[in-house]
């Protein structure tokens, strides 16, 4: 995977490396979500560039941006954003249908531990279960980039841990690059690299030589 270079807000610039788990940590208003939207192709910057595999996402059309999201990006939202009128399986399929070479949707749901709940609607699932569906939906496209916006934000401690475990497992099994943004500094312990943000600036960047397994993280 090539470099993703972003210059955002106040002279902000960083790379995302192929296959790494990168955490961006900062309080609200630090620009995390903006960065995520820019990298995910949901938004385009007024100035500067977002380069993905040599293409500047800041300069492409919205159609190309859609194609980029479709092929390369998987999103995990804080509030899951499942389509309420589709079952768990159908939610996953809705993403699978878009990919050239998707993974098996049912298998994904089995992997996230929802073999028994595949035909339930979001309203019939707990928050943790919904987040697992969301993760399965993000991963099923077999994207290069998995963007997670506060993936544990709406979950209790234990479900949060298991969601994290899932994400890391996909990183391990499929080599998916994962970018997690969170205001929860504890989460950063599981990442290979952590970028601390404040008011749109990078305060520090640190590398975890030995990321903790999620089970050992405490917040």
């Amino acid at each position, binding site marked *: 995977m090539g470099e993703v270079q972003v210059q955002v807000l106040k002279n902000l610039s960083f790379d995302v490396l192929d296959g790494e788990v990168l955490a961006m940590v900062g309080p609200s208003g630090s620009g995390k979500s903006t960065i995520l939207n820019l990298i*995910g192709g*949901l938004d385009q910057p007024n100035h500067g560039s977002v380069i993905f595999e040599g293409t500047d996402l800041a300069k492409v059309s919205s159609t190309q941006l*859609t194609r980029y*999201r479709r092929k390369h990006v998987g999103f995990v939202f804080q509030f899951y*954003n499942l389509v309420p009128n589709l079952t768990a399986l159908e939610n996953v399929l809705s*993403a699978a249908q878009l990919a050239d070479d998707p993974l098996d949707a049912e298998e994904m749901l089995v992997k996230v531990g929802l073999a028994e709940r595949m035909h339930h609607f979001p309203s019939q699932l707990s928050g943790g279960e919904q987040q697992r569906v969301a993760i399965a939906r993000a991963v099923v496209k077999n994207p290069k980039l998995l963007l997670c916006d506060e993936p544990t934000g709406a979950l209790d401690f234990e479900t949060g841990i298991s969601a994290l475990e899932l994400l890391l497992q996909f990183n391990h099994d499929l080599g998916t690059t994962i970018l997690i943004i969170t205001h929860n500094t504890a989460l950063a312990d599981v990442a290979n690299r952590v970028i601390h943000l404040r008011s749109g600036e990078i305060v520090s960047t640190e590398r975890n030589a030995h990321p903790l397994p999620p089970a050992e993280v405490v917040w």
Partner: protein
Amino acid sequence: MSILDRKLLRDLMAARGLLIAIISIMMLGSGLLIGMQTTFTNMEAAKDRYYRQCRMADFWIDFKKAPVAELELLNSIAGIRNWRQRLQFPVTVDLDQRLKPLNGTVISMPDRRQPVINDILLIRGDYFSDRGEPEVIINDKFAEANRLRPGQKLHLLLNNRREEFLIVGTAISAEFTYLIGPGSLTPDPENFGVFYLPRRQMEELFDFQGAANQVVGHFAPAVQRDQEAVLDLARRRLESSGFKTSTLKKDFTSNYFVTNEIDQLAHMSAFLPTMFLLVAALILNVLMTRLAKQQRTTVGTLKAIGYEDTAIFLHFLKFAAAVGLIAAILASVLGILLAQGMLAQYQNFFQFPDLRNDFFLQTHLIGWGVSIVCAILGSLYGARQVLLLQPAAAMRPEPPGQGGPILLERVQLLWNPLPPGWRVVLRSMFRHRSRTAIALFAGTVGAGILVSGLMMMEATEYFVRDEFERRIRSDIDLTFKDALDRQAWYELSHLPGVDQVEPLLNVPCDFVNGPYRRQGAIQGILSGAQLTVPTDKENRRIRIPSVGLVMERRLAEHLHLRVGDAIEIHPKTGRRDPILVPLATISDSQFGLNVYADLQYLSRIRGESFAMSGAQLKINKAASAQRELYLRLKKMPAMEAINSRMELIKNMRETIIQNQNIAIGMIVVFAGTIFFGNVLNASLVNLSERQREVATLGAMGYTRWEIGLLFLRESLVINIIGALLGMPLGYVLIFLMTKMIDQDLVRFPIVTAPWIWIAAFITAVLFTLLAHAVVQWRIHTMNWLESLQVRE
């Protein structure tokens, strides 16, 4: 099925409450289109088939008594392709089982069956035989209504004789598709019939050997616009042969009614569906805009996942198309049923041999197309909102809606006394201006349809009252074979059971004013007549002047005449020299193009001191008195026709009321559907938007009824204002509708009555309450806790 399509199905199911409202309005629109178009096409086709089958004439020419040899002159007129001479007379029928003499027309047919112009279509029995016994073929509906069958005998009073005839067959004919007696509006097969006699027999009965009094014929194909010129030429050539009047097919009574009905059907089948579909599209627009807002996050997510804008746009349009399709399928069913009902109704009025309810795929496809296109148009705006949504923005919660005071709040004089409940209602209405406007529009259209429909009923009622009870007040009208003198008046007034007699003198004539010429007749009445009362615009009685004519406004307009102008009249009976007479007064009525004059004045014009061609009677209505009077009248030799107006009016009223009840029922359902759908849609959209607010009120301790009241107030305000605006709209619609109908024979009055406004108001309120019941039920089943957690 793609995942999005699955979502579509579930979205449809979830919105079904709201969709029922829209689908029912849209279904009515397309259903009316399909049903009325099918009826129209079938009527038109049945008429064309029938006219062709009977070789329906293009024109009729009436003579007093024209030698057949002289009629050959018609052959020299290039515009006339072929023609047939025949005899036609009014006739009185004396049925053993009926007290009252019945009326009809007797027409000659060739002795042996051969194809002729204005041919008959035998329904039962046979054509005339050679047995030598007097034979008659009678109108099939008359036969049916009076339980007459071939093989039975029938008595006709003709040429002063009571003759017995053997019924050999029953038949119908295209020229009497709409068979009505003189002066009537609705068919009355029980009391008015057509009787066909062999030519030879009829000649003898009426002393018409070698003569005829009517010609029916076809124009040459090239004659299209100059038909009147051709007939004018015929008039000039045959003036001396006793030419009386000529009638074009378009003015021929039966065809006039058939064509007018079909034309009206065509207008209505375009107009009514348009109104419904317009309302449906606008309401759908409200729903789709709401749906787009509701699915904001979903749309954002789908876009984030990588769905293209067009895919999501199409997804929303598909939603609309599905709504249109469901409405279309239901509309097809409704259309078939409607056509069936309407055609059955028409079959009661018109005598068609084969009025079928043929299925026209094309009509259904058009209905489907219109329904779907209309649904898609109605949702374009909402779907566009989806298109414009930026995925990143869609994920963020929507900014709070507008707040702040509305314009009305500045008018403190009005605003301050308002209780809080009403303030909420008004704010909500003003903040959603386009939605309120659409709801008001729908309410207005609903009321407009209701009011115009009811006004049409009222017009018919007014028409009958005004024309048949106020303007002409006689119980029985008599027509004599020839003009009689004062002695007849005296004799009539001494008949048992007769309370009042007024003589009439009918003089058929042409009215000529320079280049303008019209056929017609002058009705001579007593200057102080009580039984015929011409009136002016303000419905005031017009006194018949001792000199000059009283002319119907429309005829005066046709002839470009003003009061005081002199007009040339060419009488067709009596002394036939043209004479100049002044136009003394203009009269206004709703029926026919009547011209009145003083009876004595008119007699003098004819060169006589007194003449009467008929009489109007006011009678004692006791059954025994009537029986005796009828018996005496039947025996009077000079009688050509005895018309019971009491029966005619009674019958007309029954027919009209029967139809009106069906029509009113349908109109109320149509308008009610709009009122219902309108309020249901507006309230449910409103409720879904304000779910959190409603739940908060509930949590605070408001009862569910109190919360319901907030919504009911808004619904009532909208539909009641709509109903108020709909009243003038209904008036305008009626005005336009009357403009579309040819007005020479019937001019429908534009009248309104308090009951119409009250009915519109009550219907609006009633259907609002009905729709509110659904909303109230929703409020009652709402879970406060869940609703509080809704992310708006």
